[in-house]
């Protein structure tokens, strides 16, 4: 794995290389070089098996991080190629021409994170969520609870108790309440 990394690090100006063990490494590559690198790894470094593609929402940095995970069956090693893209109107060069199953991954990522992959077949079609009109549900600022409350009706017969409040009611209901001062009192 180290030999491979030594070859590709200068070639793709890799910014962050993390070697987990002899058979597993992760690299961060610039967006404009990412698909070129994936292609190179497939055609010249023996990473012929596409394992998966995923995304992480780094909301604090206003970035989405795509991951292409590739496997070299001969050397039994795995490389994860990470690429950061803008979180606003996210778009990424399609890799559907490299492995056919990437069509499906890219459809899923478009639905879940709102990432466009121009030219990817059937990219406009719903993946799982038919008729979804809300913001992509895997973005961290999607409020699942709020969506559920607005969309579905609550199940009857459910109620809960906060332990501290319940204990107060049961054990010390007459606890004095301070004449609480607040800023407006001044």
């Amino acid at each position, binding site marked *: 794995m180290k030999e491979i990394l030594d070859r590709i690090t200068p070639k793709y100006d890799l910014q962050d290389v993390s070697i987990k063990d002899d058979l597993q490494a992760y690299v961060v590559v610039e967006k404009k070089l990412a698909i070129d690198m994936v292609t190179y790894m497939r055609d010249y470094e023996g990473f012929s098996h596409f394992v998966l593609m995923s995304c992480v929402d780094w909301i604090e940095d206003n970035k989405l991080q795509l991951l292409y995970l590739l496997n070299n069956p001969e050397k039994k090693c795995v490389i994860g190629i990470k690429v950061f893209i803008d979180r606003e109107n996210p778009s990424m060069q399609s890799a559907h021409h490299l492995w056919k199953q990437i069509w499906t991954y890219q459809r899923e990522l478009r639905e879940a994170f709102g990432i466009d992959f121009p030219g990817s077949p059937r990219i406009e079609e719903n993946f799982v969520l038919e008729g979804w009109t809300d913001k992509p549900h895997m973005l961290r600022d999607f409020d699942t609870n709020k969506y559920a409350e607005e969309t579905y009706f609550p199940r009857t017969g459910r109620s809960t108790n906060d*332990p*501290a409040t*319940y204990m*107060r009611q049961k054990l010390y209901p007459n606890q*004095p309440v301070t004449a609480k001062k607040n800023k407006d009192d001044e």
Partner: protein
Amino acid sequence: MNIKDVFTPFTTWSKVVKDPVTIKNPIGREAAPRYRGFHKNDIDVCIGCGTCEAICENQAIDLVPVEGIETKSGDSGLRPRIDYGRCCWCALCVDICTTNSLNLTNEYTWVDTDPDAFIFTPGVDKKSWDTKEEGWKKPVPNYHFYGQTRVPMEELHAEERVESFVEFVKGYSKKQAEEEADRCVACGICTATCPAHMGIPDYIAAIRNEDMEEGMRILYDTNPLPEICGRICTHKCEDVCSVGVNGDPLSIRWLKRYIADQIPADVDKYNEILYTKDIKNNNKKVAIIGTGPSSLSSAYYLSLLGYKITMYEKLPQAGGMMRYGIPEYRLPYDAIDKDIDYIVSLGVDIKYNVTVGKDITLEQLHEENDAVFAGTGLHLGRSTRIPGSDHENVYQSVDLLRDIVTGAEVPVERKVVVIGGGNVAMDITRSMARLQKAKYGEVNIITTSLESEDIMPADREEVVEAREEGCTIIPGYGPQEVMIENGKVVGLRVWKCLSIFDENHNFNPKFDESDERVFEGDMVIESIGQGMDLSYLSEDTKKGLEFGPRGRVQTNDNFQTSLPWLFMGGDIIQGPDVIHGIANGHRAAMAIDDFLNQGR
């Protein structure tokens, strides 16, 4: 078409005689040992802390009361109920469970025509899988969602601390406090156990949020002595901390101290943070006898309501037992002053060196004020009354502790014997150790108590720290005689104590006379409890009061005596510790306000 295409269909028929690889009837098939199926809960171990509910992303868990499970200190009495219409079997509820009572079994098949059957309370609603051992359990050890070990508190080493009365607990740094606060699961089980019912999870959250001013406001909601309590509170809250069930409990006391320590000793700053710059006077007056925790607490909360407070203190400084009973190495005077200075800044007038009953009568206070609160504490030492205990070299711990503070001359002999097993006994033991060290360069103290080691009333840490400082603690012996030779105290003769209370729970110690020891000592200090001095109650006043066992004045739950204008609290009514006093004072203050505004 080639020949292969002709014969291929027939090769399939060869499988007919082979055993199938599929299972004929998959219903009832055992799942993998760590499969995540239906929940089970050991409801005797569960304390209803609700962390399972809090972590559930699907809101599948409710906390519900269960018949037969009592709500008590350390147990909310609630138990988790699961809605399988929402559960996704992620097992986060199991992984966060503070008691490890909640598990998932590997049972995954269950058919019922009633959809409501799929909401049930594991462990309460009996299920066939309740006895199954297989399933998902928290993979302990080394798999925790919160820290199991408390951030250690830096302290002076025993050899260094016995050299002086300097405070030896250093307090948390910002990093340490935030790391410790991060361990809190915010269940709030502790709040019920705290006598003042402080908003503990809320002020710990303020530390996480780096908002010390909000932390102070939360502290002062229920406790106007946070610098003091942050150091010497008996911290019963920590005994019931849910994180402590399978790890170290949160250092709640030290976190409270951390918040108070971050605010500078500047009463203007306090008034700004706590929004108390300009309190409107309500033209009513309350006199308070004593300046201990209950008195200061009632003074603070009454001041917030606009009452004009005058406090009467017979000693030269305020604080009561907090100043004159607790040694400086545990509670430095500047911490006491910081809390009291802020209360005084609200307009509270403290009249020092005034003894009610002597310099001014209780009746005068009643005439000049709308109500009176008395929190006069337990300042009288109790004697063992064993032979020789009337010798001049037999002392009371409360007297010596007070003398150390006032700067009066304190007799320090080369060999000292202390009688008592409570915190005050440890305070005098460790104080005398410091004085001996300064005078003789060595510590030579034996402290003995009726109680055996396992039931000594002193905080465990006090006993451990006293031993670290060179004191000898020998529990389980009852004093029989202060031995005197040629007019001088030479030691204490003791018998092994077999039991303290009789079958009727009355104090009636039994001794093994054959196990007799003599602890050598040139002076003996008795520290077996304190009594109250109610001499400020005139005979007429006493006639209007009700007295209970041991001459204790009876009050209602709001600390109002049978003389409606007179309220009493603190150690003379309930305790003895600072936090009970604070809680008493708070409740009494609210009750005084009710009484004066509603004529009750």
